[in-house]
Structures are given as structure tokens and as C-alpha cells.
């Protein structure tokens, strides 16, 4: 980012594009109170993640910067901000909108690609082996069957494997 942000070089339509997506409707209601950032558990660990700042950048029209950034992928979907937001911005849903837009624009962080591969290979984010199932049996839980085929089918169908 440069030292001075020239608004005329940004995309003022960006906020309307977000608001036109399901879940993004309320983004313009944000009045920057900072309740989201104050309660965010991710921000506590990583200062770079700042929901208020992301909304601000979006409202100003910093489309490229927002969509290409890693921040939008860091949300842990804990719903703290969603519950607390006094203007009902529905931040989690806004983040989903931003992620979808980022993917469409070709911005997929490498870690996402790894996760998609794991899902495709194991039907889960990590492999279930006998060790896990024996532990489950001991405490009376049913075995977990790997559903590799179904999941990888869905991934193929949605085109996630081509990202």
C-alpha cells in the first residue's frame, strides 16, 4: 500500500457489488464503531486481521487490495462480531461474499488449495485411520466411514478442484 490513498484511483462501485450479493446487503450500514475488531479472537492472535479495517477498505473501494489480501481468509467464523454488531452488518456473511468474489477474481491462497486437496483425498480435512476408530469404539461411538467418493464428486462437480 502506498502512503497516500487516492480515492479517485479506487473502485467506488465495490460496496454496491458487495451489497448486491446475498449476505452482503448491510455492509454500508457500518459506522465504524469497532465492536467487531474489539471482540475478534483471531485479531487477538494476529494484528493484521482487523474486521473494521476490512469493511473500511471495502467501503472506500479498495477492491484489489481487499480481494487479494489474506485477511479475508482468516475469519474463524466464530460469530462473535455477527452477534455483537449494533448495525447488523452480518460480518461473517460479508466475509463469505468477499471470499467468493476473491475466488472469482482468481485470488485463492495456497493454504485453501491444500485444504481442497485434503478434502478431495480423504473426504475430510484429516485422514481417519484405525487408531481413531478404535478409540471411538472404546467409548461407544460408531465408526467413521471415509466418504471419499461422494466428497470428491462434489468437489469435481463444483469445480473446486480446478482452482
Amino acid at each position, binding site marked *: 500500500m502506498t502512503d497516500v490513498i487516492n480515492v479517485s484511483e479506487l473502485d467506488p462501485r465495490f*460496496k454496491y457489488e458487495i451489497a448486491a450479493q446475498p449476505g452482503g446487503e448491510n455492509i454500508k*450500514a457500518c459506522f465504524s464503531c469497532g465492536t467487531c475488531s474489539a471482540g475478534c479472537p483471531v485479531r487477538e492472535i494476529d494484528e493484521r486481521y482487523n474486521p473494521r479495517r476490512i469493511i473500511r477498505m471495502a467501503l472506500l473501494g479498495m477492491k484489489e487490495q481487499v480481494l487479494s489480501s489474506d485477511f479475508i481468509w482468516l475469519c474463524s467464523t466464530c460469530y462473535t462480531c455477527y452477534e455483537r454488531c449494533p448495525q447488523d452488518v452480518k460480518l461473517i456473511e460479508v466475509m463469505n461474499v468477499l471470499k467468493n468474489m476473491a475466488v472469482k477474481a482468481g485470488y485463492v491462497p495456497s493454504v485453501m488449495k491444500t485444504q481442497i486437496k485434503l478434502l478431495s483425498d480423504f473426504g475430510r480435512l484429516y485422514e481417519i485411520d484405525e487408531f481413531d476408530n478404535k478409540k471411538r469404539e472404546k467409548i461407544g461411538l460408531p465408526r467413521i466411514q471415509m466418504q471419499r467418493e461422494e466428497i470428491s464428486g462434489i468437489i469435481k462437480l463444483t469445480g473446486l478442484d480446478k482452482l
Partner: protein
Amino acid sequence: MDQSNLLEKRVGVFICHCGTNIGGFLDVEDIEEYTKGLPDVVFTQRNLYTCSEEGLSQIKNGIKEHNLNRVIVASCTPRTHEPLFKRVCSEAGLNPYLFNFVNIREHCSWVHMHERKQATKKAKDLIRMGVARVRLLEPEEDIEIDVEPACLVIGGGIAGLTASTSLAKRGFKVVLVERDATLGGLLRDLYKLYPICEDATNVLEGRKREGESYPNLEILTSSEVKEIKGFVGNYEVTVDIQYPRHGIRIIKVGVIIVATGAKVLIPEGLYGYDGKRIITQLELEKRLKEEREKLKRLNNIVMIQCVGARGDKRAYCSKVCCMVAIKNATLISRLNPEAKIYIIYRDIIQVHGTEYEDYYREARDAGILFVRYHPENEPVVSDEYVKIYDEMLGEDILIPYDLLVLSTPLVSWEDASNLAKMLKVPLDENRFFLEAHVKLRPLDFATDGIYVCGTCHWPVSVPEAVSQALGAAARASIPMANKKVRVESIISEVDKDKCIACGLCASVCPYKAIEIKKTEGGKKAEVISASCKGCGSCGASCPMSAITMHQFTDEQILSQVKAVLP
């Protein structure tokens, strides 16, 4: 009660605990014991709250059972409770002027919370002084004055018009004096009013038509108040009429409402103000009224809040500008939804009340962007851009503008002090008219019979100005409806034999309550009882000691001084 008995002084002292306010910090029992030994004190009583129903009946019983002819309450402040205790004395048959207040809360327990012994001693001293004075008090009667059932309203903006119409509706004679050629004040220049975007012209014309329909409401435009003489109930006002024919009118009224309004600050020298591409909100209102087609073609509009306000020179917040900016920005966005509108505000945006909060949200929803600044990082305006530090991004942003609108505060008229002098009412440090009490008497002046409403008192919106005007009209109608006012006879009296008509008293009197008049015995000073506020300036200045202040005679004051000296 038998007034002849007044020769024998029988003083009753009621000492209030005020819950723990006094009782928690002073040795009230010790004070009572001490008080019993003071001259002429025949009865003492301690009350948990003297102002409670029980405490008041204890005063009444004390007066009756012990034949008291002087009463002291040692408690809180006369500012709030003296009228109550005086009334109770009166109800028990004692002349209320034979009552004396001693403040042992503000003057003792509150200010000396941590010095119980000394505070207790001080309370004893004050009560001793009170007893010394109360023994010398004389019964007096309130003064009753006839009220001329007519009202002068100064200023024909929305506040003055509303107050006039409201009083005319009640059947009182009203004279509305407006110095401009037309009525309406600031409303004439406004386009739409927040929050429901009513047409300002419609609001004004409706009020004007209503006002003009009352034959008992006389409207004098192009006219100015030149002189005001008299006092509550009997004011004599000189009005200079410029148009249609120049002339002077003398008007007699009982009460006066001040509604002279304010004006918008022209921000000369601030942010490159030029009245063309960089304008005030008021100038924008005019363009919204007359040049909407031109405004439609503008793509980048920036507004800056608190211009010339909340700084060293003008410390106050003008209160209405945030809503004005939001309203005008919304109107522009309705004209041209593609316009990029930024409101650069300081610290907070002033939107109070549910309807205004909604309005603010609507504006954000329309895409208007709000950027905050702090005074240490003020916006910088160049030919093309406004540069502002965005604290959320931690970086400067450059916002291009085709039109820059500066939100400037409402400021008082330069000549407000002339009218204030004529009326003998105070102005605050910003030259706005100052009410008698911010909470208890918000529409009155300390001078009886004069009331205030609208932006001459403080910046307000149209709905607030209207509420205040209706309130001021209600207040003003009280003396007119009663036809008489009673004033306390704490006033000065001139001993005609001693008076040498030097005129010093008349010149120091802040209420114009003394006149030098020709009498059979030559020129003499004469007190206009109704105007006198009992300040004592005349008494202190008189070189012949010819002036006596009722209730505060030299003898009474010196008795207190003697009582407190060791």
C-alpha cells in the same frame, strides 16, 4: 397571629439533618444544644428532613404551640427551599418576611466534609448570625403590580412567529417586531427540513398565514426596538419603523419574548472558502432550492464538519450542522445516485433521537461515506483534493471534489449586546442570551416578564425552536392571564429628607429601578418598586445614607457582623 406581640422576640430554630448530608458530617445534637442558649431562642427542633411533610408540620406546630414570631431553618440552600419555608410560615399565620434561612449544608457539611469539629463550629457561627438578624426583621407585604395584557415579540423567525401566534390564539394582544422587510429569518434560505424533508417554504408560509389571520397580532416589519423602559407588567417600548413610512411608535406591553435568532458563520479564510466551489451549508441550501440541475451534474461532493466551531475561538458545538450535512448529502444523492459523497466529521456525528439515527443509517445506506478526523489532524484542502488522515487505515486519503461544503456553526448577532443592555438581561460568552436557570427556568430570564426562545439562546433545529417558542408563549401568558404579579418587597426605599438628588443611585442601578423626579421638596430619587431586585447597589453607593434596603438594613447586616466577630 397577634402582630403587637412582635415586640417580644420569640425565635424558633429548626435544624435539618438532610438525611446524612448534614447529619453525617456535623454534630447536629451539639449544634441544637448550642442554639438553645442564643438570645431570644425559645424553641429548637431537629428534623431528619425539614422539607418533608413531617418537617413542615413541625414548623407549623412550633409556631402555634410556642407562639414563635421569628423562624430560622438551618438546612440547605434558599435557592431551592426558601419559598417553601416562607409559605409554611405564612400558612401558620406568621408573616413570611420574619423567616431567615441559614445554609449549613453547602456552607458547612459539604465543603468541610472532613473537618467535623470545625464545620460544626462554623454551623454554630452561622446560626448565631442568623438569630442576630432574624430578631431585627420586620414584617413586610409583597408588592402587587397590574399587568398590561399585551406581549412584545422581538424577532420574526420561526420561533418568534410561533410564539406570537400561540399568544394571539389565546386572545392576548401581541406586537411582533422584525427588523428585516420580511418574516421568516433563517427559514427563508432553507430548502428542506430534516428529518422528514418538509419544504421549508411551506412550513414558513403556513405559519405566516396563520399569524396574519389574527387581528390581535400586529406584525411590524422593517422595524427595530430602540428603547425599553419599565418593568414586568408595564414595559414601554420604543419601536423605530422604517417602512412603509418612517416613524416612531411607543408600545405598552406587560411581557416580552426575545426571539432574535442567529446567523450562519461565513468561514472567511478557512479551507479556501470562496463562496463558489467551496461554500457553506446555507449556500448549498440555496443551490438545492434554485440550481438543482447544476448540482445534479456534480460527481464528487465533500463536506467538512465543525468548520470554525469547537476550537479556541468558538468552543461550542452548533448541534444542528451534523443533521444538516446528512440531510443535504442525502438530498444530493437522491438527485444523483451516482454522486460520490463524503462527510468528513470530527470525533462524533451528532444524531440524537430515533428518527435522526434512522436518517443517518439511510444516508450510509445511500452510499454516503463518513470519515472521521481529529483536531490534531485536520483536513487539508488543495485545488483538487481534500487530504484527510483515515485513522482506521492509518494512512492519508485523497478525496477529489467538485464541490466542497463547509458546515459552519450558528453564531449570534454582533448587536445582541445592544438588545441585552436594553432588556437588562445577560449574554453568555458566545453572545447567546442566557436563561435564568438551565434546568428549572430554561425559557425565562432572571428579569421577570422577559422570556427567550429559538437560536438567539443556542443553536436549535426548527422542531426545537418551535417547542421552545410554544413554551415561552406559555410562560409569558402566566402574568397576563393572572393580570397581576407579586414581587417580594426586598427593595430599597429612599428617605426623601436625606436625599440630595445626586443621582449616583440611579446611575449604579442595574435594573433602571431608580429615577430622579421633581417633587414638592425639590428633585428626589424615587424607587420603582416593581423593577427593584434588592441588589443593594444604590444603598451602598448613597453618600447621604438615605437609602434603606428592606430586609437587609444596615442594622440587620451589622448585627450579623457583630455576632460573628469574637
